[in-house]
Structure formats: C-alpha cells, structure tokens
C-alpha cells in the first residue's frame, strides 16, 4: 500500500458519503416520483443537488473499481465503510442532529473493524505470484526488456 492507494480508498469513502447526501438532499426538494409520472425523473436530474450527487456517485464508482483492481473485495468493503461514520459525524457536527448512544456504539464498532483490516495485507497473494511466474516465463523465452523487469522485481518478492 502506497500513499496513492490510500488516497483512492479515501476517495471511495468520501465520494460515496457525499454523493448519497447530495442525492438525498436534492430528492427531498423535488418530492416523490411515481411510476405514472416518470417525467418527474427528468425534473429531478435538473435539480443541481441531484446532478452533483450523480457526478459524485460516478466518481465513487470509478474509484471503487480502481480499488478493486489491486485489492481484495474483503479489504475494500470494510476499509471504505468509514463513510457511514463520516455521514454520522456530518449529521452531528454540521447539521447538529442528535446522534443516539446506540449510533455512537455503531460508529465505534465500524472504526474498530477498519482498524482490524488496516494492519493486514490488501491482496491475497496468489494472483500476484501467478503474474510473477508469467513474467519469469516470458522473460526466460523472449524480450530482454521484460527479463530486466522481472529481475528487478524478484528480489522484492523474496524480501516480503
């Protein structure tokens, strides 16, 4: 895990929480949409809060996909559940809503869960090992460029 990867995980967390809040704020302004009046959906999208919410959720989805490309699902999901905590803290300190003791307990449990995952490896090693084997196989047969690459990576694998 390097700084850039932590930044992506923070992006997943913040974009999801912010996008959901904007969307819910906007939808409360536009009112309920019924199946008989689907044109209401178009008016909803024209609401700036809803539009920003959708953009943020698109940002969430692309950061989430990026995180899944180099980390396990069972790492990404708990790691980004801090978004729930973020929402509760926003509700308490920015919107001055009441947060019950039971909810504070929920915040503590989620934070504890994230702490448990943070110390461990983010990826189950087998795909990486297979990739390294592939590189070695390719390096052994062909390109000098790739063999240099595999050579520089192998010591890292041994050290960890």
């Amino acid at each position, binding site marked *: 895990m390097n700084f850039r990867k932590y930044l992506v995980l923070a992006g997943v967390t913040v974009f999801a929480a912010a996008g959901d809040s904007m969307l819910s704020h906007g939808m409360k302004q536009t009112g309920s949409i019924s199946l008989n009046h689907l044109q209401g959906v178009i008016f909803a999208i024209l609401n700036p809060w809803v539009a920003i919410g959708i953009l943020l959720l698109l940002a969430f989805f692309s950061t989430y996909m990026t995180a899944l490309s180099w980390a396990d699902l069972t790492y990404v*999901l708990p790691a980004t*559940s801090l978004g729930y905590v973020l929402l509760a803290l926003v509700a308490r300190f920015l919107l001055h809503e009441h947060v019950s003791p039971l909810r504070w307990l929920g915040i503590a449990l989620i934070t504890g869960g994230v702490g*448990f995952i943070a110390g461990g490896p983010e990826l*189950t090693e087998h795909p990486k090992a297979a990739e390294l084997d592939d590189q070695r196989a390719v390096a052994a047969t062909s390109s000098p460029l790739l063999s240099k690459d595999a050579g520089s990576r192998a010591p890292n694998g041994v050290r960890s």
Partner: protein
Amino acid sequence: MKGVYTWGAILVIVFASVVGDVLLARAMKQVGDVGALRRRVGLPAVVRRTLGNPNFLFGVIAMAVAFFSLLFALSWGDVSLVAPAAASLTFIGNAVAAKIFLHERVDRRRWIAASLVAAGVALLAG
C-alpha cells in the same frame, strides 16, 4: 405475512448486491491494476477494457437489480428494518462469497472486521 415478504425482499437485495460485488471484483482483477495500466496504455484503453469485460456488465446489471429492489422494498417495507438488515447482511455475504468464489484469504482478522462493520452498520442505519 408481511414479515415474510420483507425478509424475502431483504434476501433478494443482499443476494443481488453480493453477486454484483463479486462479479465487479472479478472483472477488475481480470482488467488488472488500473493505475499501472493507465500509465502504460492510457485512460481510454483502460475504460474500453473495463466496459468490454462481460463480468463487469453482469456485475453492473446485478447492482442495478439490487438498487431497484431496495427502492421497491423501501416503498412498502419497514425502512428501519430493510435498510440496516440489507446493508449489514451484504458485508457478511460478501465475506463468504469472496472466500468461495474469488478465493480470497479471509483470515480471522478479516472475519472480525466484516462482523464488526456489519454490526456497526446495523446500529447506525437502524
């Protein structure tokens, strides 16, 4: 009787979102490390490669099913049961499914994390 329908809806939501998450995770592992890939072939190629992955498309469809069944369930179900139960069971379901279908090493650390988060989400969303 209403309880049966509500729990049925919760199971559908959890099932669809677990299927979606597993398919998306598998798709992105097939695509490969997006950061490294982008530096090598450029962003448009990465997007094309992701959108062209069948697992990705089925994953998005499953997520859409989960989303609309949640909306549907919220329109007649008990919000204070449906939302937290679905969110929290999805964390547990994902841990089980990731172990079975993605062969992730779900060690004790990860089980504890998933359970704590599931319990916390149930309390927060409730």
